[in-house]
């Protein structure tokens, strides 16, 4: 077994609870040794079901899960050696903090004094030194989640699985815990599989992200690739903000640069050039997607109107570190709204009602089906 071989492979895994609808379908997914992989997707997209199959709480209806090349599809959860952290913490209320953390060691028959040493080390790792004798109900939500984390790590599991572990915490604490989790992952080198519906959380922590929609994995990629080169319209819309302009593929450019399509957006507006993200045939319906920070704002009609559309500012939203303009593309049917990100001190920031021109750089406008 080489170091590059994946730790876990999902091979054609599907799960249905009622025999009709697939909660997860045709899942092929590799989890690499030591990586921080996040399963990201909207509610009901099958993330938790996937994690539950990995943990052994649910059995796949079809397909196999391999751990180091060995099928574990039917291995019961208590023989998998995975640490699991739940959203509601799932601490044992009848045991104190130390006994909670010692539980996995105790069921493995670790000697008492070794247990105590390992529990102390695990509590220190999550910065809860000296709280071992507390009852779990006496701890704050953040502290309870740390105890759950210590309990899932203390027995040196082969992998740590977390299902929305920070979902119940307030924003500030959540962001703080994200940084700590990331640091912990770097320090321990254990494989983390993390479930969340929060795309910013996924981008902050992960090495790679698997984006789920309706039971299907849409894209598995590094976070920067996911943001810069989303594989589908769903990913473009779900990961980060993006403006979507519907239209039709009018032509394929052969020269300038190759692979560029022309998108006819309707009305009298000029066509826009963009990157072909999905090998679209000419004549098919397509949507141009672009990140808010990539759109350029012009306050006067440009001499060269290539890739430029007229718009009217609908409102400006103050974000503290930047401004966002929401602009209606007035020349287009239904006047779709584009979101533009501007620095606070930008000279050309326009007020609501002003007429502007938006330029969409062809390298950053990606065309999806």
């Amino acid at each position: 077994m080489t170091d590059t071989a994946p730790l876990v492979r999902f091979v054609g895994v599907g799960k249905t609870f009622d025999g009709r609808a697939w909660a997860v379908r045709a899942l092929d997914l590799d989890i690499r040794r030591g990586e921080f992989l996040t399963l990201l997707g909207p509610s009901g997209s099958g993330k938790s079901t996937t994690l539950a199959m990995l943990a052994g709480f649910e059995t796949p209806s079809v397909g196999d899960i391999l751990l180091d090349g060995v099928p574990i599809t039917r291995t019961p959860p208590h023989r998998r050696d995975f640490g699991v952290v739940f959203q509601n913490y799932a601490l044992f209320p009848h045991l104190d903090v130390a006994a909670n953390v010692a539980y996995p060691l105790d069921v493995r028959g670790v000697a008492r004094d070794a247990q105590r040493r390992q529990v102390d080390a695990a509590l220190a790792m999550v910065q809860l030194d000296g709280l071992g004798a507390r009852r779990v109900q006496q701890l704050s939500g953040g502290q309870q989640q740390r105890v759950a984390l210590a309990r899932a790590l203390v027995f040196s599991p082969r992998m740590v699985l977390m299902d929305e572990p920070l979902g119940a915490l307030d924003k500030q604490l959540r962001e703080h815990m994200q940084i700590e989790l990331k640091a912990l992952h770097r320090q321990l080198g254990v494989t983390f599989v993390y479930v969340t519906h929060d795309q910013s959380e996924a981008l902050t922590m992960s090495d790679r992200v698997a984006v789920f929609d309706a039971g299907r994995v849409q894209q598995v990629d590094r976070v920067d690739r996911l943001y810069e080169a989303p594989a589908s319209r769903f990913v473009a819309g779900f990961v980060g903000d993006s403006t979507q302009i519907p239209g039709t593929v009018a032509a394929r450019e052969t020269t300038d640069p190759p692979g560029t399509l022309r998108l006819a957006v309707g009305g009298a507006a000029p066509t826009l050039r963009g990157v072909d993200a999905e090998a679209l045939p000419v004549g098919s319906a397509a949507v141009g997607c672009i990140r808010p920070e990539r759109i350029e704002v012009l306050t006067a009609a440009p001499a060269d109107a290539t890739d430029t559309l007229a718009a009217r500012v609908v409102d400006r939203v103050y974000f503290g570190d930047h401004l966002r303009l929401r602009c209606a593309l007035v020349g287009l049917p239904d006047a779709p709204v584009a979101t533009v990100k501007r620095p606070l001190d930008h000279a050309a920031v326009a007020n609501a009602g002003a007429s502007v021109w938006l330029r969409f750089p062809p390298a950053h406008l990606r065309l999806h089906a």
Partner: protein
Amino acid sequence: MTPPAVDAPTLARAVRRERRRRTAGGLLLVAPLLVFLGLTLLLPIGTLLARAVHDPQVATALPATAQALDAWDRVAPLPDAARVALQRDLLAATDDARIGGVARRLNGDVPGARSLVMGTWRALHHDPAAAGFDPTAPRAAALEAFDARWADPAVWIAIARNAAAFNPDDLLAAVDLRRDAQGGIARVPADESAFGRILARTLGVSAAVTALCLLLGYPLAWWISTLPPQRAALAMIAVLLPFWTSVLVRAAAWVVLLQREGLVNQALIAAGVIAEPLALIFNRTGVVISMTHVLLPFMVLPLLAAMRAVPPTLMRAAVSLGSPPLQAFVRVWMPQTRAGVAAGVLLVFILALGYYVTPALLGGADDQMLSYYVARYANVEIDWGMACALAVVLLAATLVLYTLYRRVARDTVLGA
């Protein structure tokens, strides 16, 4: 803006005033309930306690005698005033049922006292002169002249005892104690003692029923807690069915099932498990079976409530941490249901302590519980003092057990 300056005592006074106002408001709201409870609970229990140590029967029938005997120390010679007072009282008593009651009561203490009292009363009312009595000016010596048994101090001691304002005899008898002639307290001889055994039997049957209810109810409640809501509702109806059936119908059903020629015995014989029919009814077995059946819902309901409140992720967490399912169930899941177990055990045990109808219908003579004797003394023996004394013992036993239990339950449920 700074708040207006207020000194601490003024602030404390304001807080106290506010709290008082709230308390008063609350009391006003529960006042009707308090009155209701006072009339229907505290008053009867108070009467019961009083009745257990004071029976007005003798004192009201023989008021003058009671007064004359009040000062007597039961050792010195009997004052003549008492002999005169008794004749006056018997002459004044026209209701023979009332005198009959007194006579029966005294007969319980001194065998033969009944015929003595009734004979004297009849003689006084029919032909006093012939019997040597003078109704207008009773003479002290006339009683002993009429019947020599009046010379026996035991008869007078019995009258004095039963007429006294405070008479602990019934209460003592209920715990197998009695006062000897000198007023000292002694154990009732083993062959005469009964109530100690009955109390032990009551506690024993209740404990057995509670244990059986827990043994049967725990898996049942667990099973129901795993069902989807609609099926769980159906299962609950099945559990609650005995609740909605009359006690008599239930008892009759158990007779049909458990008697010598009943369904259970026939089935067991047909299956070749036993050769002779088992005695399942009109004995302890029948009482325990039917009481368990009736009380099972009181165990299942609190258990179910506790089990439904256990988060399902706890089992998943325990299993993921390396526990096989059974170990996870015992070490993590079951401890979460302790409060439900505590509530169910308490409820069933205390209800079982007071059971009357079921043992009366399905038990033998040796299976009757304390409440049966309360009813018996109240309805058959017409001895309210004894009935109340037994009820007080039952109440006291319940309170003592409850207090002990609270202490134990607090330590196990809330403690570390």
